[in-house]
């Protein structure tokens, strides 16, 4: 099977799981369908040459974050409740907003490297459109030179070092905040 066929299979799986996630009455089933969406997205990341992020997606998103969700759902025992899907007027509004957003975002599907280069005013030259993007070419070559993790680590710890450190402060603040909020009495 070519990469395209695999991609479309995974994409159909992701969209189907996402639709089931927002329509399931049972909150726990909803959470598990979201895990399924995240797994198919992780597989798509591998197809898009982002193997490290695929692993992180499974570990952090489908693992840690969704376990937190399932934990809270079971703690609050809200699995079996009456349907919480809103009434007909809101459904119509949601459908209209969805269709409107989809029509706008549909333009994205026509983006190609060539149109991207033309859009930001770079002339691609005679060769392939990718010649206009040396950074993309370097990014595609980096895993072969530095390894899959090293290719991400180099920009993360050089160009984006300050945002990385700020992220650690954010995580500390979130951990303290979550404990304070969830505690009954300080």
């Amino acid at each position, binding site marked *: 099977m070519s990469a*395209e066929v695999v991609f*479309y299979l995974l994409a159909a799986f*992701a*969209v189907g799981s*996402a*639709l089931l*996630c*927002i329509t399931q009455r049972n*909150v726990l089933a*909803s959470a598990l369908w979201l895990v399924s*969406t*995240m797994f198919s*997205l992780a597989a*798509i*990341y591998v197809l*898009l*040459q*982002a193997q*490290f992020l695929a692993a*992180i*997606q499974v570990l952090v*998103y489908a693992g*840690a*974050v969704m376990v*937190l*969700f399932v934990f809270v759902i079971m703690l*609050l025992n809200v699995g079996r409740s009456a349907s*919480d*899907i*809103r009434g007909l007027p809101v*459904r119509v*509004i*949601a*459908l209209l*907003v*969805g269709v409107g*957003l*989809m029509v706008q975002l*549909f333009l*994205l*599907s026509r*983006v*190609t*490297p060539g149109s*991207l280069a033309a859009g930001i005013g770079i002339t691609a030259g005679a060769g392939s459109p990718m010649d206009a993007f040396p950074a*993309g070419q*370097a*990014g595609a070559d980096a895993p072969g030179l530095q390894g899959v993790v090293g*290719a*991400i680590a180099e920009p*993360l710890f050089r*160009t*984006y070092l300050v945002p*990385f450190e700020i*992220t650690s402060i954010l*995580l500390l603040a979130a951990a303290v*905040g*979550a404990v304070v*909020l969830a505690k*009954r009495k300080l």
Partner: protein
Amino acid sequence: MLLGPSLLLSAVLFTIGVVGVLLRRNAIVLFMCVELMLNAVNLTFIAFSQVLGLGGQVMVFFVMTVAAAEAAVGLAIILAIFRHTRSVDLKNINLLQG
């Protein structure tokens, strides 16, 4: 190079997330729909990082961290609200409605 199809998939997932936020009244499901939208944006970053370099993948790293922090704090808030009103249904959470 699956740039166009990836962007289309991310658009579809983002739209499903928005529709889910509008459609559901359960605060936990609302949070999961926000996570779905964040995932769609991550897919856009990774699709563009194929062409524009690895900076996009680093940005996905940051988005995941912020999403994890947001989920922890948000679920703690939902827990506190549940203790107060014994419900996670948004129709019972209307203190700010006046």
